[in-house]
């Protein structure tokens, strides 16, 4: 075999591998829609998305997922209220105030947070945070939307810190120098020049953090309580879309309405996370345009 044919073969093998992840994505989307779409016809899109009762195994059954969507949104927003201030201040601190030698040591440690398996966060939330919140607020149970929000916030921190720190650091040095030269204080420079310039990069990091929070399953299944009622507040147990799929899919007869409804939830979830990713991608592109001055 001469080297040219060899090169060619290797090229095609690599091409196949390179295409494989796209194939996986296409495969997943096809399966998702094939299994889940029928429920939208059977129940009706409006009744499915805005129905307030989730009783999938009763006769007659109710397949309203509004409580589940609301719970996911509530828990994710809660996570962001917790994670964005902490994440932003951390990234500003790391990129501007901390000496470089410590920064090179601290940043990998924060990124290590992302490597902890979610079941461990779940255990922590169940055994430590849950009972703690229960005592503080005098709740009947510590498994609430707030518990889940705090845990998801911690889990989203590494994404937010790491990406917004990158965004802040990549603001050209001359912006800062110009601001300081004009007599701006350090705080004015950070709040009026650096952060606005880095804003779209920061938005990207928040969107990706939200994507992580809304798609997280094990932790919310363990700590959110799992009540399928419409969320009445942050101190009540709630059930998210992901937790519902995880808890119910195992024993659901294949092809039944319940099975299709779980796939229907998965479609809704997929569309939500996909739009988060698209928004993140668009803002990221805008950010690099801005920084490069074009």
């Amino acid at each position, binding site marked *: 075999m001469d080297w040219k044919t060899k090169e060619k073969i290797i090229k095609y093998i690599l091409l196949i591998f390179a295409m494989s992840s796209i194939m996986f994505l296409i495969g997943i989307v096809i399966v998702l829609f094939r299994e889940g779409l029928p429920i939208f016809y059977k129940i009706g899109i409006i009744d499915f998305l805005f129905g307030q009762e989730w009783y999938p195994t009763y006769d007659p059954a109710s397949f309203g997922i509004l409580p589940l969507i609301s719970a996911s949104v509530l828990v994710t927003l809660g996570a962001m209220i917790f994670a964005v201030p902490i994440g932003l201040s951390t990234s500003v601190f790391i990129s501007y105030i901390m000496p470089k030698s410590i920064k090179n040591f601290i940043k990998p440690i924060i990124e290590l947070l992302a490597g902890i398996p979610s079941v461990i966060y779940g255990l922590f939330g169940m055994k430590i945070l849950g009972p703690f919140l229960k005592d503080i607020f005098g709740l009947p149970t510590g498994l609430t939307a707030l518990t889940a929000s705090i845990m998801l916030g911690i889990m989203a921190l590494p994404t937010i810190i790491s990406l917004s720190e990158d965004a802040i650091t990549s603001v050209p040095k001359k912006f800062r120098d110009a601001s300081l030269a004009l007599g701006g204080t350090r705080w004015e420079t950070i709040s009026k020049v650096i952060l606005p310039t880095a804003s779209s990069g920061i938005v990207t990091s928040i969107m990706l953090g939200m994507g992580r929070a809304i798609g997280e399953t094990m932790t919310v299944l363990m700590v959110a309580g799992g*009540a*399928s009622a419409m969320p009445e507040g942050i101190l009540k147990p709630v059930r998210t879309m992901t937790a519902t799929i995880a808890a*119910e899919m195992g024993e659901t007869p294949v092809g039944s309405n319940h099975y299709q409804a779980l796939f229907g939830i998965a479609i809704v979830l997929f569309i939500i996370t996909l739009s988060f990713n698209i928004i993140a991608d668009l803002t990221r592109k805008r950010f690099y345009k801005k920084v490069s001055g074009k």
Partner: protein
Amino acid sequence: MKKNLLILLTVVMVISLFTGVVGAQENLTIQGSSTVLPIAQKAAEVYMENNDVSISVRGGGSGNGIAALIDGTTDIADASRFIKQEEVDNAVANGHFPVPHRVAMDGIAVVVHPDNPIDKLTLMEIKQIYTGQIENWSELGGTNQEVVVISRDSSSGTFEVFNEIAVEGERVTPGALLQASNGAVKDTVANTEGAIGYVGLGYLDESIKATKVNGVYPTNSTVASGKFPIARPLFMFTDGWPEGLVADYINFVLSAEGQKIVEEQGYVPLH
């Protein structure tokens, strides 16, 4: 040298493939209820250790198992309910004659936190709690504390029995906390003073308190005798009166050793 090794390896693989086919073991397939699955699975494992047979066990639910028996694609159908008349008719029309074998009892205890003074409930009270009509323990003569209702995911077999017998098929309050396993229910009840939950009898220990239901305390003997109300028999259905390997396996499940497995898996043995 490398080439020779490769050829040798291929030959070995081909031979082993053939001997596998020639010395074909006797096969037994079991399919059905995921409630019975742990019993069937464990019994199959122990049985296969002592006999040179191959048993494959699958879940999928009672309905799927009985459907497979009607189609003749399984030897044994596990079921957590009795066969329906419609299914018997279909089976007979297909030339199959389902025979029920009761292999175990499944009892579900209603549990509360050990500090809760309530130690007996009626089925009616349990129903009112689970449908959200009773929301505070004081309504039952207990302490002034909100009831935290804990339920299983609605596709589990435990939920099915509990909902049918104790809640009489009505909708469980949407405020009920969902836990995905017996262990998780037990854990949550043990950590929540106002909680009420339900678990299989095998999960009872001192971290939670089982209540009397209609005056009967859940024990293996009250479940086996049918005195304890939240209980049901578990079945294995065979096609016709069992013979050969099928009969041997069913006999094993019903033997003292098999019934020990039943108890180890958290169910109530028949004797």
